[in-house]
């Protein structure tokens, strides 16, 4: 059994009186790509926000590498080695490519090694090096995706959370984005991915969970889910 990276136990989350997540439990082991599938409004982003500290859960707990991180503010959670790529990348549009990347190593320990990290990221995404002085808002869709991923890598994370990687991208770029994700895993990053695009995400994932109306309704290896009737009907349209 590989090292357990993330463990979520009986997580309940509510916005005011409206409960969004009910007893969600899941885990991710080191080096895995795990995908969370779910339709719009299933609570996927809420789950991510609860893990990364933007939303305080009602109950349950989240532990990362054996340490309890439930309810910590996001800046402390990042320090544990978690990087989060929000839906649509959320770049800093008025800052240059390089500044965007440098912001990824904002935390004190990372700030000292940002030159090394920058070199590393430019190696992974040479295109970003060519564009390092351009403002982020002038990049193309694919380049933005690279920049968002590069910014994640700047904090030297152990685990990356990716919210709707395929959001707003042309089909060809979606394929590229997933390929990039796979190469990030090969570089040693553990990956937790949220997706509506079941077909392509299951192709690169090791395991998957299915979230419906705030509850985990199905889980298994990617292969199992690709062939389960429920998934084929609800998400693959077969």
């Amino acid at each position, binding site marked *: 059994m590989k090292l357990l990276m993330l463990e979520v136990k009986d997580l309940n989350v509510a916005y005011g009186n409206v409960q969004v997540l009910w007893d969600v439990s899941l885990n991710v082991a080191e080096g895995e790509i795990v995908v969370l599938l779910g339709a719009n409004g299933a609570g996927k982003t809420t789950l991510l926000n609860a893990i*990364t500290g*933007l939303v305080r859960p009602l109950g349950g707990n989240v532990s990362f590498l054996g340490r309890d991180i439930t309810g910590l503010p996001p*800046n402390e959670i*990042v320090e544990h080695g978690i990087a989060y790529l929000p839906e649509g990348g959320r770049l*800093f549009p008025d800052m240059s490519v390089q500044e965007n990347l440098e*912001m990824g190593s*904002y935390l004190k320990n990372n700030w000292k090694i940002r030159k090394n990290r920058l070199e590393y990221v430019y190696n992974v995404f040479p295109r970003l090096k060519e564009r390092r002085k351009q403002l982020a*808002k002038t990049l193309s869709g694919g380049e933005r995706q690279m920049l968002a991923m590069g910014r994640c890598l700047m904090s030297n994370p152990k685990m990356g959370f990716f919210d709707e990687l395929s959001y707003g991208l042309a089909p060809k770029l979606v394929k590229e984005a997933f390929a990039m994700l796979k190469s990030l895993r090969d570089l040693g990053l553990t990956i937790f991915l949220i997706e509506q695009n079941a077909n392509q995400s299951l192709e690169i994932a090791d395991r998957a969970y299915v979230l419906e109306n705030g509850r985990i309704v199905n889980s298994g290896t990617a292969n199992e889910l690709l062939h389960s009737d429920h998934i084929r009907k609800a998400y693959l349209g077969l």
Partner: protein
Amino acid sequence: MKQSKRIAKYILPVVIVLLVALMAVVPFFTDPYKVVFLRTILMFVILTLSWSLFSGTTGYTSLATAAFYGAGLYTTAYLGEKLPLPLMVVCGGITAFALALLMGAITLRLKGIYFAIFTLSSVELIKQVLHWYEINIVGVRGHYVTRVNDVTVYYVLLVITVLLVLTIYLIKRSRYGLALNSIGSCEEAAAHIGINVVGLKILAYAISSFFIGMAGAIMATGMLYIDSYVAFDLNYSFFPTLMAIFGGLGNILGPLVGAAVFTYLREILITKYSYHYMLIFGTVMVLTILYLPSGLIGLAQNIWKKLTTPAPTKGLKTEGGKHADTSC
């Protein structure tokens, strides 16, 4: 090309040093009126630069400048006779710093227009509470201030300005400067990266207010009498904001030039067209916002670009404003 860039790197510091040296000797050569006038300019430069240190970078429009300025004025009104001058100025800064910490802690979770409105009304709130306190509890309205001569006030303001520019420069070069910009660019992403956004905003707000408070503390010595209506005048909130927009947001030079030119214009208009000055002034502001969205500095940069780029080719515009969506 490279060499010209290297020279350009040194031009600005040299110009600044020369300017400061010039400002330092001016009182020996000019008449008292000009010193008072330059004093007003320096005061607005401090207010505008401080305002833009926080609001220009983070995009949170603060209209509480008058509150911090007033806090400085009142500090002098109460402590002025008991403390030596430098200590009194620092005390004014500290009062404003503390006030900004408090207000920031309460309001910096608000966004956009809500923050602006809260800061605006906070000035009025402080003014009225202080007024009520003086009338009903103290029994005396306002306070007399011991005057300090104009030249001293001028030099203190010059020192504050230099310190402020230095502070802004150091912050800009540090990771906190980038972090403040990133909050202005996309606060959500900034939080995800691990920036303590609320903490950083409050701290930046307090630091910028510190300088506003110091300016208030020393300016109080130029007045004879201070009450809450004099001290917490909303114009001190509006002018710095307008001046920064007028000069151009985003760097040190914009607010600096904006404040200087704006104050100069205002002085001329008041003395020469005292009846129509607000009318002319308003028109100038509207025209600025319509046609000079990057302010005076933006205009200068555009002209410079046109002069230095030989044959401008179409479609080579560097501003990405129209490209795709600019939201984060």
